[in-house]
């Protein structure tokens, strides 16, 4: 009984598969080969109290299924300058909060994220390069 109740909790995290017309399961690409590749424009010229748009392009490499991206997240993970930490005091990221993004098979969609450099930015961040990492959470719609 407990095992049955635990099943729906464990399935979403582990089920890298889809139901097929025959009622069986087939694998979809796992974490090591995602179907959505995210690229962004190069943002430059940040300085205290300025905002810049980061336009992310989400490209689906799956030509059979539509994909619904439920969440897009941008993180600053490192900088090139010693003393300039990748924190909110130095670079604030206003995440995408819009509706889910449906990407038709093999196509791409864009979303905009705002990068803001607050007045609290460290002097050490002058001329720094912030390394950004993009991640998305998506669902694939299986053809039935």
């Amino acid at each position, binding site marked *: *009984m407990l095992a*049955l*109740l635990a*099943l*729906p909790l464990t*399935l979403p995290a582990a*089920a*890298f*598969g*889809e*139901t097929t017309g025959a009622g069986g399961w087939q694998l*979809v690409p*796992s*974490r090591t*080969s*995602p*179907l*959505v*590749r*995210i*690229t*962004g*424009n*190069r*943002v*430059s*010229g*940040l*300085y*205290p*109290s*300025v905002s*810049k748009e*980061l336009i992310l392009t989400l490209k689906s490499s799956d030509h059979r299924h539509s994909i619904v991206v439920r969440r897009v997240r941008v993180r*600053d993970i490192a900088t090139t300058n010693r003393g300039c930490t990748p924190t909110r005091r130095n*670079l604030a990221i206003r995440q995408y909060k819009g509706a889910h993004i449906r990407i038709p098979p093999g196509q791409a969609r864009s979303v905009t994220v705002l*990068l803001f450099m607050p*007045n*609290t*930015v460290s*002097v050490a*961040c*002058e*001329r*720094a*390069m*912030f*390394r*950004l*990492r*993009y*991640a*998305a*959470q*998506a*669902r*694939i*719609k*299986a053809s*039935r």
Partner: protein
Amino acid sequence: MARFLGVALRAAARRLTPVVVATILAGSAATAWAFWTTSSASGSSGAATAATVNQGATPSVTLTSIGREVSLSWGASTLSNGTAVTGYLVKRYPAGGGVATISPIGTCSGTVASLSCVEDDVPPGNWKYTITPSVGSWKGSESLLSGIVSVGAAKYTTAL
């Protein structure tokens, strides 16, 4: 009889509960959606670069007719991306070298938002000036030293 039926129904309900739960779960699992999370694929990363503040332009200095008042002006400074800076710090150095200072009297103390200022109550002596462009807490390189401005001692005239 009724009591017997009640006990029997409760027992049947206990036996059937796992079956009902399993049926619901099976129905849920048959939806047409599979779930996965994309993480940082190669190419799913990028960068944003910060600008830097350029060096300030060398200021021009003149002694005004008042005598102990120095007027300064300078060209606009920019960030590395061409954006104008928002302020300037003005410093006065002894012409022979020494510690910088600025009089609090006049418009040159603190952060100056314009491209000119006037320093009043300048002590007698030979002085040179610099400006340093700033944006927020960021500062550019200090400008080169201006030409020398010579301020004479104050003259007091007493009417007899």
